């Protein structure tokens, strides 16, 4: 009898084990998903973009892995019509903090900001072409810049701080456009990305982020989403938020102020490189017309340039041809164009919007 019992156990015991490991009806802790991003702060910058494992393969699809969160500022910088795809990632257990509507979120060490630049309908072949991916990584309280340039095959992007030019021809609304796209040299990064010469991200102020984004799992306010995934601690209910300058249903002046903030305020601000000029183009400042340069006499005389008329003020209300800002936006000549860097083409839509706004102004100068 004992023998049979032993055999019984031998045969059926595994079945009991396998049954009991079936989990049905037995509660078990959910396996926590971990972000597969690779970020050794002693080793970065890595030689290749794929080394970070931010994206699934194929790399050029820019499909983020777990933990890499897409984001978008409400109004975006004009970069010679290049499109952008931006992402943020942070290590486990740390988050950014709120530091004021008009100041960048305070990011923790290990945080990475990822910005991919690309064109669509690139000729010949009418395809999408990724040009560069710019990273900012926070290490020991300071931001590090790392730039990656995509190969022609679009399989990889390589660490390259030398700067280069990439000629691109593409179709935009049926029109063929060309650009000799400038990939910046490493020393150029901080000229825009700084506050008091200390490296700082642009486009990460709550006033830039406070909007809805269509995530894969549904639409949500970006700040709310960041909080939910553990990337932001707290944020207030009321935030002085800008508008999308492309949204023609918005107030024209708010659109202009939003455009000037994202394209200009990083230099034309109290702590920017051009703080010695009177303009303060931050959205938080431009409700006051003085800060926009309205009725302000320019320090610099650009009237000797052939395409410039006789501007009398930085912005002359009612007449864009008397406004310095109009000529600076409407030129490609590098010694008086604005923004100074980051663009080589004229942003026709931006110029049109600002022209319309200047001509609509009713202030009177003394």
């Amino acid at each position, binding site marked *: 009898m004992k023998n049979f019992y032993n055999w019984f156990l031998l045969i059926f015991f595994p079945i009991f084990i396998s049954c009991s490991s079936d989990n049905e009806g037995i509660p078990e802790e959910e396996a926590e998903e971990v972000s597969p991003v690779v970020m050794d702060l002693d080793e970065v910058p890595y030689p290749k973009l794929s080394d970070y494992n931010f994206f699934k393969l194929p790399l050029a699809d820019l499909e983020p892995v777990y933990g890499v969160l897409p984001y978008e500022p409400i109004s975006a910088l004009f970069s010679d019509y290049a499109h952008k795809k931006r992402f943020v990632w942070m290590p486990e257990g740390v988050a950014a903090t709120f530091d004021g509507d008009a100041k960048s979120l305070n990011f923790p060490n290990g945080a990475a900001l990822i910005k991919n630049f690309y064109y669509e309908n690139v000729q010949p072949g009418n395809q999408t072409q990724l040009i560069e991916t710019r990273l900012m990584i926070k290490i020991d309280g300071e931001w590090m810049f790392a730039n990656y340039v995509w190969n022609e095959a679009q399989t990889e992007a390589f660490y390259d701080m030398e700067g280069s030019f990439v000629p691109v021809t593409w179709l935009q609304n049926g029109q063929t456009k060309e650009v000799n796209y400038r990939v910046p040299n490493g*020393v150029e990064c901080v000229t825009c990305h700084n506050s008091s010469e200390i490296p700082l991200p642009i486009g990460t102020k709550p006033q830039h982020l406070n909007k809805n984004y269509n995530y894969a799992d549904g639409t949500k306010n970006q700040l709310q989403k960041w909080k939910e995934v553990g990337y932001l601690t707290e944020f207030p209910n009321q935030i002085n938020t800008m508008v999308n300058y492309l949204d023609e249903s918005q107030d024209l002046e708010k659109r202009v102020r939003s455009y000037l903030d994202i394209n200009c305020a990083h230099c034309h601000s109290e702590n920017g490189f051009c*703080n010695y000029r009177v303009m303060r183009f931050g959205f938080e400042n431009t409700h006051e017309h003085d800060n926009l340069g309205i009725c302000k006499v320019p320090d610099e005389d650009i009237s*000797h*340039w052939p395409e410039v008329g006789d501007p009398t003020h930085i912005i002359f209300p009612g007449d864009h041809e008397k406004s310095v800002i109009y000529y600076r936006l409407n030129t490609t000549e590098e010694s008086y164009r604005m923004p100074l860097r980051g663009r080589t083409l004229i942003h026709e839509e931006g110029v049109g919007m600002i022209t319309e706004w200047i001509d609509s102004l009713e202030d009177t100068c003394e």
Partner: protein
Amino acid sequence: MKTKILLLTAFTAFTALNAQLSFTTEDVPSQGNYQRCVVDMNGDFLDDIVSVSATNINILFQTESGFEVGNFTTTSANNNPSWTMAAGDFNGDGYNDLLYGGGNGATFMMSDGTGNGYVENSPGEYIFSQRTNFVDINGDGHLDAFVCHDVAPNVYYLNDGNNNLEYHQGGIGDYHSGGHYGSLWVDYNNDGLIDMHMSKCGGEEARYTDNLFRNNGDGTFTDVAAMANMDNKTQTWSTAWGDFDNDGFMDAMVGVSSFNTGGQKLMRNNGDGTFTDVTAGSGFDNFNHTSWIYAPADFNNDGYIDIYGSGSKIMLNNGDMTFTPVNVPFSTASIGDLNNDGFLDAFNFGEVHFNDGNDNNWLTINTIGTESNRNGIGARVEIYTEMGKQIRDVRSGEGFSEMSTLNTHFGIGTDTEIQQVIVRWPSGIIDTIENPEINSTLVIIEGEHQMGVQEVEADLFSIYPNPVKDILNVQGKSLETADFEIYHITGSKVMTGKINNGKINVKHLTKGIYVISVKKEGKTSTLKFIKQ
């Protein structure tokens, strides 16, 4: 009543000043996106007008009967002179080369030696160029090129001796994020070594504090601005350096592009390596204009250097470290003598503002280096007249964007005699010319007028006129049977013959510098001359 008298006095003074200095504007057929250069381009030492586009150099050559247009096609310049332009004979072939300072790098257009073509050399380093200069940085006799960097430490290209560009970064303006706007090469301490003053702007205070780099003589420079009281913390793109009080030391008028952190400053050189702020009461204390450009020139030939570049005004030097503004039709401009009348004119985008002149006397000097770089850049030129001593440094690249003449110009007011002209070359050679003719051009070739050396040689011959247009007169004892040879400065022989009656027809020679060699009884002697 007092007010009326004051007003009347002011009005009279104003009119009187304007009567003393006025310009007549004429259109000129210059063509190009960048029109910011006045300098001799065909070797005849007459200032020409240079305008450039990416694929063309347009030159208006100055002649007696107006400007002759020349267009020279180039390869498409990698960098345009969108920020600055400089000129100098980098490759020593007798024709000035051009340096374009662009927002992504520097491009050189080197003359090909014929006077008829230019070859692009874009070394390729990333530079957000600001002020560019040609200067012999390491004192080896070869001209080098300096390029201010807006967002990184300054860079320079040394001439390796074979006219190749050797890139260097660091040692002369090292602020990590740049702010380097206006480099000005000047011997501020009169030690015969060329120093550099660095006008700075933008960002934090440390970034916009000016530097004064003292040349240590061994290829290195030391920033002595704080010690010299020249560490100005104003938003400055350029500074006008000149001996404003004619005491033999270079002074500085530190201009501003914005009044944000202070106004213009007039700094008097104390002669001991330090400067004193003498702005109060100078006229610059209530000069309410801003500019990228501040540069010196004696416009009314009274022997006191004036300052231009801002507010459509020239600040006329009253001779006592005070200046009075005079309205003129230009701010930004390239300066040179565009009609060879001894008065400095101004060129800007299709317009020449010709100086109406006056009765004051003047002297123009062409420096030709032999041991030193061919332009004589870095040489200290001194003249002595009854009113005293005046000095200049030969400079390539003053103010901010523009390139102005490489000729050295002095006004001497009502003085009718020049006792001496002394040139102290970068090589250390000193030439002295006694009693040169006033109201004319004096050609000084390095080494040919050294005191005490010439007597022994007892030159076989002398030549006149120099510069020459058609007949070169050769004078000397018993030269009738002597042979002569004429070489272009690059070495090619262009003429031979016998002196005969001492008149050599050189009309057919192209413009440039030549050497005439005369052989008599086995002895050879040479002199250089300029063909115009």
